[in-house]
């Protein structure tokens, strides 16, 4: 290894780049949305009108209503 460039630093940097590539790819996929979808409604799932991640929706399954009083879900 060259001076000032540790193996741990190299692995960290490579890992960071890989992570950024994965996140960027995921964002691109999310922006495209489903085939035939509407870009404005891409990248989220609906839960009583809330724009949520699939993980949010899974965790909120069975939770009490999340809407303001007076607003129907």
């Amino acid at each position, binding site marked *: 290894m060259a001076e000032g460039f540790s193996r741990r630093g190299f692995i960290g940097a490579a890992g960071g780049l890989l992570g950024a590539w994965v996140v960027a790819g995921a*964002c691109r996929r*999310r922006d495209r949305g489903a085939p035939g979808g509407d870009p*404005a*409604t*891409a*990248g*989220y799932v609906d839960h*009583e*009108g*809330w*724009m*949520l*991640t699939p993980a*949010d929706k899974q*965790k*909120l399954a069975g*939770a*009490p*209503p*999340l*809407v*303001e009083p*007076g*607003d*129907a879900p």
Partner: protein
Amino acid sequence: MFITDGGLRSDTYGYFVVGSGPAGVSLALALADAGRRVLILESGGEDQFRNELSNSIGYGHFSGEYWNLHSVRTLGGSSTVWSGWCTTPRELDFDNPSVGVRWPIPRRELMPYWRKAAPLLDHDPAFVDFERPLVPGFLYRPVPVAGPTNVGHRHLARLKSDGGVDVATGCSVVAIDAAESRSAVTGLHCVHHASGARRHVAIGGRQRVVLAAGGIGNARLLLQPPADGGVPIGNESGQAGRYLMEHPHLFRAGECALGAALDQYWPAAHERRGVHALAVDADLAREHGLYGCSIQCSRKTADHPMARFLSRETGRPFFHYGIAVRAEMQPSAGNRVFLTEERDRTGLFRPGVRCVLDARDFLNVEQTLRLLGQTLMRLDQGRVRVNNDRIYKNVAGGGHIMGTTRMGEDASKSVVDPHCRVHGYANFFVAGSSVFPTGGGYANPTLTIVALALRLADRLLGEE
């Protein structure tokens, strides 16, 4: 000084202003400050409303009663029903390709006049143009609230003294005379309501007339057919009354949970003197073809299931806000003030008002909210709920009647030129939001109305 007996002496004044709302009073006081004598002609009285004269018939998204509520004939005009909100249109609002109409004046030209206008409306000039970046693509852009100031009552002592401005109350302008060449206004016909007397005020070549009778009133006067049945005075372009715009108000259009408390962006000294609001930045607006849309957040609480859920998940505090939206609408020639067959008791044809929002106006709001939701979710900074029914089925307005005597360089497509002069006339001008060529984004119009009036005063004085 108040003139209540209908006695008018036209040779005393250099300027005649029709209407005593924010535009008329600001303009008159600015001219009087420069030593000029001004007569304001006001249909109503100091506290007496004369709304039966402005009664409209509404078509489209808003009823006649709605327009009547915001087309007020009394000292102070529309400022008597104003909520006190002031903000400025942004750079993009002056030339947004998605709106398709640009203002013929640059934003920078209005900036000094906004600063002068703010104190007249009891606003702090430092905050009417306040904005901070919030998250990529969105700005924190609160709407300052003060007063609300009734411009008539605020300046009542001066208007009643011999301070250069006289106010003829209970006096409606019902017709305008012009030279045969249509190059100058030569007279005003007035009705004094208490006596029923009709007066003619001759206007000389060095005297100036400014219509400041509101978005419906200005157009209505320019649409009235003259006695000879010819083209109405000031409507040689045929554009008077067209391109009426409102600011669609969509209450409870959504709700959100945010990771940052919005009040951190607003100076503590200004607590309760503004409405928290977000807006897309110019780049995101251009990318998605969006126009004015203010996402106003209120009723902050940490005690909401979504705020608690996100706080639990992230280990950071989240706050829930209700969302109301105030937005821009597309100018359309079909939305307009026009004359019905019915006459009021002064003989003027009663106005009809058609205002139909475009599908794009609703989509603009929905897309703006969804972009905020997508952005906050991507950054793990919050979540948004979009209330479809409240956006598409519960539209209200703000009483912002704009565009009916629009400003432009082309005399065939506008009513007044960039200096608010009626095209072709040497001594005939219009003040008020009726000259707005677009809604100016979502910005509440009163500050810009006063700013344009002050700019017009400078122009008139400079022309002498």
